[in-house]
């Protein structure tokens, strides 16, 4: 399966999950024609660039933390502004997803508010009002860690070669093994569009799009 097909498959299955989380948790809302037109415009602009961003459905905007505990694992949905990682000043995102979003933005698409969904650990207590950074922070990139170890081994090998040539012995540090990956929560990025001319406030009807979903 090539990368594009993989991305589409991941987005489709994630969209199915998110539709249940968003739409079933709300009553049916009326969607005005301007909102439909706005959503269609975003889909059109994406299609012009050969991109596809699944529509999750229509649901009102909300602020604060929304917990979905009816699924396994549990999920947390919230406004990107409240994301602990976002509040550190930067938000890491895999390169291929960033490229897709930049292409979408350059095509002229804009979203009124971004939301993030995170898997929650089994021991997460629903009484907690906010998420800690440790729950959402990504692990160090595996590729960079492995490259550093490989370059370190090569450096030690070069030193060992020269030392052996000079008749001395040098201990080459053994590789301690690949860095263990923390099973961290997979973030999902969603974008919302609202009818033009309306201020984005909690309760305003919006069409939700799935922008990106990935595993660290």
């Amino acid at each position, binding site marked *: 399966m090539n990368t594009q097909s993989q991305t589409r498959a991941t987005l489709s299955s994630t969209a199915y999950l998110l539709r249940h989380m968003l739409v079933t948790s709300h009553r049916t809302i009326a969607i005005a024609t301007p909102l439909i037109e706005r959503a269609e415009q975003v889909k059109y602009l994406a299609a012009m660039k050969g991109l596809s961003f699944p529509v999750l459905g229509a649901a009102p905007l909300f602020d604060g933390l929304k917990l979905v505990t009816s699924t396994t694992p549990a999920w947390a949905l919230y*406004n990107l502004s409240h994301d602990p990682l976002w509040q550190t000043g930067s938000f890491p995102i895999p390169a291929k997803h960033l490229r897709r979003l930049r292409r*979408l933005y350059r095509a002229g*698409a804009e979203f009124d508010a971004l939301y993030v969904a995170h898997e929650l650990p089994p021991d997460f207590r629903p009484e907690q009002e906010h998420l800690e950074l440790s729950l959402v922070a990504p692990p160090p*990139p595996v590729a960079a860690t492995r490259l550093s170890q490989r370059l370190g081994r090569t450096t030690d090998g*070069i030193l060992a070669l020269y030392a052996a040539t000079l008749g001395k012995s040098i201990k080459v540090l053994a590789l301690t093994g690949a860095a263990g990956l923390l099973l961290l929560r997979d973030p999902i990025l969603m974008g919302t569009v609202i009818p033009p001319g309306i201020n984005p406030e909690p309760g305003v009807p919006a069409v939700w799009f799935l922008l990106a979903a990935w595993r660290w």
Partner: protein
Amino acid sequence: MQRETLGQFLQRANVYEHTPVSIDPALRRGAWLSWLMTSIYWVFYRYLPDGSVLVSSPFFRWTRRWLADTWDFVADHRQVFLTACVFVFSMILVLLAMTRGFRVADIRLQIALFTPVIFAAINLPFIVTLLLPVLVNMLLWFCLATLVLIAGVALLGALFWMASR
């Protein structure tokens, strides 16, 4: 309601694969070592005498031609070697600042940090090649001195033996 648009998100988003990670201790060690070796190479190339100076010295009579050829090559290209050393030295200084003392680096800086290590590794056998005629010359003088000493001792021994008969 505080909100972020896609444009605002793209301004703050950064590539995950470029997140800095801790530099492997062996690579860190190699970086420090390559800094030291590059400094030594610069001094060596800067103050290496011309081959013609050595050719006239009676001490280097055994490897005169060999020495002159190799050291003249370096003397003719001295500026190239010195420039390369200065470039690598500056590169290490910049990387030292960017990696906070060779502690953390993203994937691109890790590759850049390996470059001085390769430079130091390549120069070492080259410098050994330059010093080899000197070492061989010294070794030959040592052998000659040993032979003379053995011959002298043998002659003395023979004289004493003849005198005692």
